[in-house]
């Protein structure tokens, strides 16, 4: 069964460093999303992406964040200058235009900022 994959599974970085989190959505999906979950808290929407542009973003998704689909398969989230409070689990999700609209999530990348 097709699935969303994410790499790395765990990323440790120092405050102020740039990180890129990678996702490979399900191959025939057209809509892509990033969410994050700070330990012990709710899953929060960050951004949605369609047709090579951001469809919607939350207040969390400030100028430090960017997303890109550099090729036909990868979808990336970049954090330019990480802060301690960026430590969280980051989930990528994708959705097919023609399915019954379920969003399928990847296993997540645990980002630890020290």
């Amino acid at each position, binding site marked *: 069964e097709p699935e969303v994959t994410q790499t790395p599974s765990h990323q440790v970085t120092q405050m102020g460093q740039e990180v890129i989190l990678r996702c490979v959505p399900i191959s025939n999906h057209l809509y892509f999303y990033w969410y994050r979950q700070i330990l012990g808290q709710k899953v929060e*929407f960050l951004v949605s992406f369609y047709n090579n542009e951001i*469809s919607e973003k939350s207040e969390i998704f400030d100028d430090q964040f960017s997303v890109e689909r550099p090729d036909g398969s990868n979808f990336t989230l970049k954090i330019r200058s990480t802060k301690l409070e960026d430590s969280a689990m980051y989930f990528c999700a994708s959705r097919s235009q023609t399915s019954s609209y*379920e*969003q399928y*999530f990847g296993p997540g990348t645990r980002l630890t900022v020290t």
Partner: protein
Amino acid sequence: SQQGEEDPQALSIQEGENATMNCSYKTSINNLQWYRQNSGRGLVHLILIRSNEREKHSGRLRVTLDTSKKSSSLLITASRAADTASYFCAADTSGTYKYIFGTGTRLKVLA
């Protein structure tokens, strides 16, 4: 309270029993999904129910939706130890498939 509040926050049952988790939301929805998350792991999609549907089944799972009460419930029948996980509802309130997640119910099934 916020959109997508589940109750109970934690539930402990014996294997073989049924588990019911509830989710309430504040505004109208386009659709609502239920997910399972094992500790520290990813979100596994369980069921999507649309605003014009009242009940859906998938194996041992049954989801109901009451739009007049702005609530949904997830029933797991004949629970197993492997069902131990956190369960979240996620509501699409804007029709843009930006999901608002609830706080989750931590289910523990004792063997």
